[in-house]
């Protein structure tokens, strides 16, 4: 179905994509670097990989004005012989999670013993499950991340491959509040009541004061119209919803603009 969308809406959708694209490009760069490092080592080990991950993510985590608050590499169970379950994840100084008053860049402490009461099987979580299934990048959230950022968060993860096998994920966390500060001025320019939603129809930010971040946007036909975004298909065609609203996908971010009449 072809829908006529005013040019402004398409431009706004593109600008939202171009705000997030650098984060995607950065993660893709990390993935390439990790895949290269793994390919050159006969038996990659956590001990040699961790300093590489730290060197990759630290500059971006410490860059003033950076959108990201946490980043790193999470290994497939059993991939690293010296660390069967392994998270090499760093938090920025702006990340308040379990932070001492003057905390700077620091590594996330994790429990990697499967017999421990505190152990978590991260392969059951959306940021692992979905990219594992689709083989491509996934945006999880917004959601309250009570174990890593302690705040309302979006997580982006992408698979790292080694000889056709999944070696793990590289990824990053972004605070929704920071994202909103950047994205809201952009969507305001549409002149319509306009909401940015994820592929489940959850509101990331909206120009309509009655549409709360985190709420589900309940519009007829919206869930169906978002199906291609949930299936990680790059959808660029706008769709008209029965109630008169228009859905405009934002590039390959899996986010979409919903413009109401």
């Amino acid at each position, binding site marked *: 179905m072809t829908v006529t969308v005013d040019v402004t809406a398409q431009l706004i959708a593109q600008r939202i994509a171009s705000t997030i694209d650098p984060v995607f490009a950065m993660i893709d760069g990390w993935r390439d670097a990790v895949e290269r490092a793994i390919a050159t080592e006969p038996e990659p080990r956590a001990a040699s990989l961790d300093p590489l991950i730290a060197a990759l993510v630290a500059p971006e985590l410490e860059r003033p004005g950076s959108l990201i608050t946490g980043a790193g590499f999470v290994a497939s169970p059993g991939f690293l012989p010296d660390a069967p379950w392994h998270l090499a994840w760093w938090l920025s100084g702006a990340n308040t999670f379990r932070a001492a008053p003057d905390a700077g860049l620091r590594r996330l402490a994790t*429990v990697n013993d499967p017999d421990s009461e*505190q152990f*978590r099987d991260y392969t059951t979580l959306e*940021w692992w499950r979905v990219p594992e299934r689709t083989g491509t990048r996934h945006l999880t959230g917004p*959601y309250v991340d009570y*174990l890593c950022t302690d705040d309302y*968060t979006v997580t982006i993860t992408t698979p790292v491959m080694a000889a056709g096998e999944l070696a793990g994920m590289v990824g990053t966390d972004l605070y929704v509040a920071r994202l909103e500060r950047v994205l809201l001025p952009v969507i305001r320019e549409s002149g319509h009541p306009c909401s940015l939603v994820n592929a489940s129809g959850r509101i990331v930010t909206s120009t309509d004061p009655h549409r709360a971040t985190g709420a589900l946007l309940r519009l007829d036909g919206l869930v169906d119209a978002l199906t291609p975004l949930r299936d990680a298909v790059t959808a660029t065609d706008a769709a008209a919803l029965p109630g008169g609203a228009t859905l405009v996908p934002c590039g390959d971010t899996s986010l979409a603009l919903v413009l109401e009449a």
Partner: protein
Amino acid sequence: MPQTTGRGDATRAVVFSPLDGAGRAELVEQRLTDAIVAGVLRDGERLPSESELARSLGVAVVTAREALESLRDKGLVLTRRGRDGGSFVTHDRDATTRMIDERVRAQSRIELRDLSLHYAAIAGMAAEVAADRASDDDVQSLVEIDERADLTTPGGARRAVGRFQLEIAAVSQSPRLVHEELRLQAETGSLLWLCLREQDYRDRSRQARLDVIEAIRSVEPERARRVTTDHIASAVEWLIEEKVRLEASEPPEAPGPAGSPEASVAERTEGGAA
């Protein structure tokens, strides 16, 4: 990164997060006591060192030391010297049961009801908002938490309640409700859900969980709230009845030896600290 399964870790994080207000040894001691009694900190577990504890709680080292000394005096912590030394949690079931009973006795009815009201305000609101904001995936994760629940022991049933309530708070999409839920669980979980010592209440808590899931699935915010607050209200009613029983069995003027409560109390508290 999202972690839907790690409630234990999150409640632990609250235990070692900075204290509000003036750093006081009593506050440190109370927080660690609650965590040990609730089983958040496990038997034999090594506590952070004095200086680590002081840093993570935002208090002076001398304050942390004082708190650890009090915990040692209460028999909740053991300190070993040497290379593998440190302070370790000693989780004695009888001692824990006694301590919980003492807390029930020490708190007035007004305090117990106020505590449950505070918790119901947080948990009820979280359930109400969650019913409006839950995606299909969210409902599914609530169903899975319920299916994993171990209702054969009080500890298992209480962990299930804690995990479920935390997930409800997360589904509400509110970081503040999540924080408050975690804080209240660490502070009051062992006390409020004491009724889960009884199988009947464990079954009832399961039913409440299923009702809340159903209310969320069918987007009925008011019903989700009501089921949640009714569940909490019944827990505090049991607690106050237990307080009456405890007071009747042991007059406060002449406390008997702590190891010999009446048979009915001993039966009821069996496994209460699991």
